[in-house]
């Protein structure tokens, strides 16, 4: 190692690293110990400072430990509270047979006429942006249901059909694992939800959605001024920079539960009907509890005609399509 000339700078490098030893003053080096100088005093002072340092360190370790314990307790309490609330929610959501419902949708493609009424109903219900010609040209207008043209076979033996495509509410959703802030999650009743005030807009969930059925707000929505009365007060308006998607109209579930409670009767699965199901003129969309073996959806979901999109990925969608093939 290189040695450099000590030019007598009083500030020692190693003092900064809290490893200081009693500093040897110049008198110690020049004089013999027996002569006695203020050096011994200096040494004592350094010793005191050292023990003080030790005390500080111990104090610091103690404080740090206490802080960690406090943080740990808080986090644990929050977890407990979350578990409690989810338990409550699942109790709250008990169906008539005493089980937690698993909401699912069945779309009968043999009945679907591709009229687009579901798209309109959904847009009105969920306060979608109106969009304009420019946005439409850039395909930046958000609609939670899209009619996806599916072309099967090869020319000339092709068969084309329109597939009403909405969030598949996967039972094993890939989008929720990658969200860094848990803004998207699956609730105890199987609805995949999105917390708008928490979303940071990283678009990771959209990238991990095999169906590409989540939407990002590229800009702020534009609404006519003054805002017409047709707007739904139960659904939040989404602003720029966040991700949104079909919620299975979960605000309708809350309203149905409250209504049943107010009327003093038990909540039935039939009380909860999303807007698209209600609007479908061909009655091609069914909605209900997949956990109830007697429900229409669960019977249809097990029918011969049933299939799921990209089933091989194992996402287990809760939107099931029916088709004669």
């Amino acid at each position: 190692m290189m040695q450099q000339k000590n030019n007598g700078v009083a500030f020692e490098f190693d003092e900064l690293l809290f490893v200081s030893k009693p500093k040897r003053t110049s008198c110690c080096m020049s004089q013999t110990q027996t002569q006695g100088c203020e050096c011994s005093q200096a040494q004592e002072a350094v010793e005191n400072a050292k023990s003080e340092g030790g005390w500080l360190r111990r104090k610091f370790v103690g404080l740090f430990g206490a802080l960690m314990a406090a943080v740990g307790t808080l986090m644990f309490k929050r977890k407990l509270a979350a578990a409690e609330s989810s338990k409550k929610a699942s109790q709250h959501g008990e169906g008539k047979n005493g089980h937690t419902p698993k909401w699912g949708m069945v779309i009968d493609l043999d009945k679907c006429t591709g009229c687009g009424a579901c798209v309109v109903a959904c847009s009105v219900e969920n306060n979608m942006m109106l969009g304009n010609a420019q946005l439409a040209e850039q395909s930046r207008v958000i609609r939670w249901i899209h009619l996806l043209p599916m072309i099967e076979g090869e020319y000339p033996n092709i068969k084309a059909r329109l597939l009403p495509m909405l969030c598949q509410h996967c039972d094993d959703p890939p989008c929720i694992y990658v969200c860094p802030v848990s803004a998207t999650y699956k609730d105890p009743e199987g609805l995949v939800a999105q917390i708008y005030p928490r979303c940071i807009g990283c678009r990771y969930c959209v990238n991990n959605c095999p169906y590409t059925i989540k939407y990002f707000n590229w800009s702020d929505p534009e609404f006519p001024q003054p805002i017409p009365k047709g707007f739904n007060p139960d659904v939040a308006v989404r602003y720029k920079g966040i991700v949104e998607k079909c919620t299975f109209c979960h605000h309708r579930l809350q309203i149905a539960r409250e209504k049943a409670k107010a009327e003093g009767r038990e909540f039935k699965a039939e009380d909860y009907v999303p807007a698209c199901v209600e609007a479908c003129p061909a009655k091609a969309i069914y909605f209900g509890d997949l956990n109830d073996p007697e429900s229409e959806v669960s019977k249809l979901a097990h029918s011969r005609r049933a299939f799921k999109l990209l089933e091989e990925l194992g996402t287990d969608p809760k939107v099931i399509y029916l088709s004669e093939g």
Partner: protein
Amino acid sequence: MHKHESVVNANNATNADEEIRALEEQLETDVLRPLVTKPSREYYLICGFLAAVFLFALFAWSTQLWNGLIVTGLNAPVFWGVYIVNFVFFIGISHAGTLISSILRIANVEWRRPFTRMAEAVTVFSLPFGALCPIVDMGRPDRVFMIIKHPHGTSPILWDIICISTYLTTSCFYFYLSLIPDLATARDRLKNAHPFKLWLYKTLSLGWTGTERQWRILDTIMTVMSVLLFIIVISVHTNVSFVFAVTFKPGWHTTILPPFFVLGAIFSGIATVIVVMAAVRKYFGLERWVTDWHFDRIAAFLLALTCFWFYAMFVEHLLTIYLHEPAEMRIILERFVGRFSLMFWVMFALCFIVPLPILAVRKWRTIPNLVIVSLLINVGMWLERYVIIVPSNLNTLLPWGTFHYFPSWVEIAITAGWFSGFILLLLLFARFFPTIAIWEVKEGLHAAYKPRQPVFVKSES
């Protein structure tokens, strides 16, 4: 072992000591000269231009913050574009610094010595821009602290934030530690420098006097941190690759991606260090300390990395082709013969076909060629990230249609601005701090005179 060996007269110890002292004196004078000489007019012009580009990028970002990401070329299903390409690129080149200064320091590789300082500078200056890229990409950058408030353990973005912030802190600290002895040298030698600079050196050198004890402490910390950084550096780019590798996307979901990303990061990082060091050597006249031999060695290292890069590329594509899964094949065809074929083959040429002969044939391995090849490799590696990220985004699993992506002026301006900011920081650094680790080169001089005995060699008796 070392170029300076030729001047060694091992038989005469006192003579050797004097020679070392003279060499050290010369080294200090050469390295510290740019700190006191007045920069040329071109230097100010270039700095002004880079600063203007950077400020324009900030303006572009502000328009994006005001209007939303509608001002970018991004649109469903291309949710990630040039910003994420830049993110991977900047984090990539930051790996060189640590590789040279930590891994090569542990391995005690002799040719690393004049490169360490600027390599670490590349790390420290490229990392902030890399870390900024995902924040620019976010829809709501104001909510970035939500990640700390509501952390979700399964998300690679959270791991990235932990890794990159650890890496940034550690490498800044490491960079600063290795600067301390040189700052003390500057403080002691540059008595006629600008008072601000003198104050800077005096404050930052923390009263370093170069006692045996100080050296021991510094050496211990540097060794421990080298090992620590070695682990962190692998984890950083592994996690950057996890952002892609854990998803469903064909073309992203491969197990080779993490090691390939680490390799690519080191590859582009070494190339960046070569360019930076060649510039420093030319403009500051440091040919005596960064010799052709040093460049020859780092070129050989770059050659090895080129071969490794080809190997990883070959394995990734060969196995995917054998799998023959339709969705994966769409991406492969997109790269080989489709819309990205031009970009892919240009990238392949820049990263492998051109560098391989130039680096392998001794006759062609000259410094200007090496600089050109290094620049080409960096362009190629940027294109590689683009070819990895964008085609997988464009090709959806369901037939949503055909999409196109081209970055808008905002994305291009921000990209240009981040590159300018990076170069600007390097230029400023070169005028304020020693560009070569004086103490480390001195150590090399001593080692050349008195070779260290390997501890594991058995004694003959």
